[in-house]
């Protein structure tokens, strides 16, 4: 990041404890992390290491016990419930492992929903939704219901919903779920493309192959960041070397 860039996501010395006393579980213990525009950061770690907690805090779905989370410079703790809901509709996109598509709405309606909830006119919201569906390779399936789509197509709809409009921060939790490796790769390709176009991305995964799509990979163990990879050099630098 250059000096003029504000980190899209800024997590500062965040702790998250569930419960109190001897039964307390320390999900995160002093985690700091920034993600800039055009940067995709992967968080790797085993189950229970705090990955999903970190993602929930980044998107304002949960609040830290201590420490601070900022999205585009805005401290989330300063937002009331309404402000947080607005942030989630406008600036943050989520891609979950379970897709959370509404079965009674078509693909276009699912994708347009956050925009409509946010006050965008129906016609305009649906036009934006169709554009987002085209971006994920589903230009002709917008009028189908989720159960008329394959697993991979449903996941693409969920991604379109996460990317529709001007989302500056995209949060993905094991976004390839149970998809086969080709379809999973296509999902990451879409995420990567959106980040290359200027969004900031945080990808939680336990698969190294998926984390390989990130610019930087951080490793979480028992709620603590244990190490991370430095940002990458250029493709040209790599080609001049010999593999590893």
């Amino acid at each position, binding site marked *: 990041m250059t000096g003029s860039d504000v980190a899209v996501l800024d997590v500062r010395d965040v702790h998250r404890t569930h419960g109190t006393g001897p039964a307390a579980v320390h999900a995160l213990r002093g985690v700091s992390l920034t993600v800039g525009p055009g940067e995709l950061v992967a968080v*790797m770690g*085993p189950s229970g290491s705090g990955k999903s907690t970190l993602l929930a805090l980044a998107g304002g779905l949960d609040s830290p016990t201590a420490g601070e989370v900022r999205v585009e410079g805005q401290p989330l703790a300063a937002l009331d419930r309404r402000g947080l809901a607005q942030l989630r509709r406008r600036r943050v996109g989520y891609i979950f492992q379970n897709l959370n598509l509404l079965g009674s709405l078509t693909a276009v309606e699912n994708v347009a929903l956050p925009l409509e909830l946010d006050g965008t006119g129906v016609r305009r919201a649906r036009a934006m939704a169709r554009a987002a569906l085209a971006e994920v390779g589903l230009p002709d399936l917008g009028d189908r219901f989720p159960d008329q789509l394959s697993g991979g197509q449903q996941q693409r709809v969920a991604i379109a919903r996460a990317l529709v409009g001007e989302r500056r921060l995209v949060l993905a939790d094991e976004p390839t779920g149970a998809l086969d490796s080709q379809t999973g790769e296509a999902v990451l*390709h879409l995420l*990567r493309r959106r980040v290359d176009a200027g969004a900031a991305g945080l990808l939680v995964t336990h*698969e*190294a*192959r998926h*984390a*390989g*799509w*990130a*610019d930087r*990979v951080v*490793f979480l*163990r*028992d709620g603590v960041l*244990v*190490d*991370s*990879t*430095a940002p*990458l050099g250029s*493709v040209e630098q*790599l*080609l001049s070397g*010999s*593999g*590893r």
Partner: protein
Amino acid sequence: MSIRHGLLALLERGQMYGYQLRAAFEESTGSTWPLNIGQVYTTLSRLERDGLVRSLPESEAGQRPYEITDAGRADLALWFATPVSRTDRPRDELSIKLALALTTPGVDVRSVVQTQRAATMRALQELTRLKYASDRPEDLPWRLVLDAMVFQAEAEVRWLDHCETSLVRYRPPAPGPQSPDASRGAEAVLPADEEARR
């Protein structure tokens, strides 16, 4: 894998001279395996000695093309039909290094694991970036070579994760006169101990 069979496979496409073979070899392995021209000519002369290729008259430009023989084709077909044996692959320096780190006094094994994992992860990121940059249909052979390296790197990261988890539970046997059975017994109670401390 031998350069031998690589060159035979290339000659099966048609006759070529040394520099063409080197370029085609590097192209089909996506430059992950650079060859020097000396290796190409040494291999060609051995292949010719064994009757698997034959050299043709020099061109006016002084280039001598080679072509594959029937014996060469049979050898190539056998190579494609035979699975690669794991024992033919080079010894895995990393696993040996970790095994030694564990038994060498004063080595911070966790740090060895973490340093390696960050490096392997970085290689994986680089490979993925190369893949992302080569999405034309004609890039498929190169992408598959990259995929092979991606899956190997992924396996290594998983193994390193496994090592790290195992290290959490590991306590080296205490020095001193202890029977092997006693030291095993002491280790067995440690995981629970570790859990209790968390």
